[in-house]
């Protein structure tokens, strides 16, 4: 029994950064912006969170550093794509490459240093309950934040007026503009929110999951988060299913290696990516579903009338 609890806990730990980054990107894409720089914002979050924790000795301050770093980095993207109307795909890719390089430079002095781990919460009595205690009352704070965030984003998008406006901007920016909704403002806020989420996802990696600083430690999780948004067909609830599926595949790969199943490790490492491709193909087949949920203005630049 304890083995399974620890496996599920490790799945939660592997899935949380995916869920956080994907939730942020979902909001960004719902507003009609395609930010391919998730990987870059995530690693900036990871290195700044690690640095913040090292400098202050407090992992929560570190997490805050990560959030701010991700948000600040996404502002660059917002400026380039919204104000200068640069191509979103190219700018996003550039953001990823820049983030990977810049984080390596910032983190040079931290390589090999022992990290400060954000501890799991411990509620007397409740956390000691069998099975449930560990799973429900004994995880790290960022895990709870990620679940709360998904619910909050769902409520915001589908139950609040501001969320309706954001979806409207993503469906047709010219119509939204004609109604007097601030298209660029909405998109800028969505991008910054996405950046903050990616930053927190990075913080989870360097403060909870690993916890240390390794160059390039995001290892493609930003890209999986992007695929997840499509997997969830832009619906927050489905993000949880997708993130945990991908997280489980990731963990399964470690355990299968340890058990010596005779499957090459490289194949197992590639499993999440193969799953992504399979899921993308499967989803593309259901066109009605995709068309109704896909933000129609995704990736299109908006230039207001004079």
């Amino acid at each position: 029994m304890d083995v399974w609890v620890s496996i599920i806990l490790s799945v939660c730990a592997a899935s949380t950064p995916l869920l956080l980054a994907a939730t942020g990107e979902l909001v960004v894409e719902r507003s009609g912006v395609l930010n391919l720089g998730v990987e870059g914002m995530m690693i900036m979050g990871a290195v700044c969170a690690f640095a913040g924790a090292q400098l202050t000795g407090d992992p929560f301050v570190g997490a805050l550093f990560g959030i701010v770093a991700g948000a600040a980095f996404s502002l660059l993207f917002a400026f380039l794509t919204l104000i200068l109307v640069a191509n979103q795909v190219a700018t996003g890719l550039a953001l990823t490459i820049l983030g990977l390089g810049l984080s390596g430079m910032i983190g040079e002095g931290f390589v090999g240093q022992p990290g400060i781990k954000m501890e799991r919460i411990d509620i007397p009595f409740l956390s000691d309950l069998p099975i449930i205690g560990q799973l429900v009352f004994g995880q790290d704070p960022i895990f709870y934040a990620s679940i709360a965030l998904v619910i909050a984003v769902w409520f915001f998008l589908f139950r609040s007026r501001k969320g309706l406006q954001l979806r409207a901007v993503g469906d047709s920016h010219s119509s939204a503009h004609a109604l007097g909704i601030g298209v660029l403002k909405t998109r800028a806020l969505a991008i910054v929110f996405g950046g903050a989420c990616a930053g927190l996802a990075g913080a989870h990696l360097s403060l909870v999951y690993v916890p240390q600083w390794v160059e390039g430690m995001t290892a493609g999780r930003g890209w999986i988060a992007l695929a997840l948004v499509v997997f969830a067909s832009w619906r927050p609830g489905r993000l949880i299913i997708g993130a945990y599926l991908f997280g489980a595949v990731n963990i399964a790969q470690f355990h299968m290696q340890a058990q010596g199943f005779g499957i090459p490790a490289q194949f197992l490492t590639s499993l999440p990516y193969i799953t992504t491709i399979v899921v993308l193909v499967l989803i593309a087949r259901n066109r009605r579903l995709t068309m109704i949920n896909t933000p129609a203005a995704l990736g299109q630049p908006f230039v207001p009338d004079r």
Partner: protein
Amino acid sequence: MSADDAKLLETKGLTKVFGTLRANDQVDFDIRPGEIHALLGENGAGKSTLVKMLFGSLQPTGGIIEWRGEPVTVPSPSVARSMGIGMVFQHFSLFEALTVAENIALSMEPDVKTSQVAERARELSKQYGLPLDPDALVGDLSVGERQRIEIIRCLMQDPSLVILDEPTSVLTPQEADTLFETLFRLRDEGRAILYISHRLEEVQRLCSRATIMRHGKVVDICDPREETAATLAARMVGAELQDIRPAPVSLEAAPVILSVRGLSLAPDNPFAVALKNINFDVHSGEVLGIAGIAGEGQGEFFSALSGEVEQLPTGGTIELRGNDLSALNISERRKKGAAFVPEERHGHGAVTGMRLTDNMLLARHKSDQDSFQSGGGLGVIVRSAIRSATDRVNAAMDVRKGAPDPNAGSLSGGNLQKFIMGRELDRQPALLVVNQPTWGVDAGAAGHIRQSLVDLAASGSAVIMISQDLDEIFSIATRIAVIAKGTLSEPTDAAKMSREAVGLLMTGQTSDRAEVAA
């Protein structure tokens, strides 16, 4: 104060300058409560610019706007709405992925709940006889239903001034009649209605006053009921328009050019329309007009004829002068003598970011392979040949452009459409299929394009003209068929068709009855 002086809205010397273009030049205009006031003018006359300034989407360069006698600035549409100005747009500002109630809620105060909006919309739709389901997804609705959303959205604010921009351009005659009744009702409630249209018959029927604009200036204010359509048109254009008529064709004598049997097509996305068992012949010398409301399968019908969508083996046959086209792609169909002009000029009919000569080559690289390319398999482009063909087209169609070989996107809509039409006509095709030939084109260019279609038919070719503009259909088609819900009615001699009959077919009423009978 007498009733005459009670102006609801007045502009004095209103001016808007875009670069070197004076889109609105010293416009003096006024509207009173309880009147339907027409704003007339060609495309590019400045009607939209004026209305956008009244509604706050654009800011004037000079002049003043007075609302109930007080000078005001209208910084944004939401301010306009709170003042009591409502607008129904020509191109609906609706969100297809959202429900009707959500769409309406977006233009309301933020503290109003979507469920309350749905309730209020239901009441208004009953009160004004505009049936509408607030929970329906807009993407699934017809154009007429979408317009009802716009009108109800506008009425939710209880506006004193309602602006309608070309409201009937997408409606059937019957739907238009329903709209007019709603408008009369609004007028009788003391609201002012600003009615933008280029359909003079409607304006004469509805409006008690008309402001006519040309080249950004107000050229006349008159009572349209005391004018004739011809005198109004002359003031809009600044010159008398010529009447274009097709030459009569004897169907028995004329050979069949295109024969379509059992054409069917499955929809390729949730918002597409399926084509169901379409049969017709087009003869030499004929202009077959295909009428219909937007989104009834015109685009799919065009794509099936042009070969842009792959046809299934069971999807019927398309024979051009005895050659079966159904298995051929678009280039092969062109080589057999067909030519196509799609509805959307930008990005479909022409690549806006490329020069006219490049667009010429893109469309005709296969059909004119021998003259446009040399070097055998290498396919070296012969620029001189393309340039001379482009010059020929520009001269024949009177394409007005600012540079010898400008980007397609820099031409005005009418001039680009003339170029695209000319590019196809220059090949002397046996069959020309054109979708909305004069959509959004000014009257002068539209006349030129229609004349060229009639001339092509007179030279012995067949023309299929898909159009939502009934005036256009009745002016140049020799036979008329109607597309509704993906089915095509039997083509009938234009002289034997009335607008009412076409209108009934457009709503699919007779085809429904036929299904019941079967």
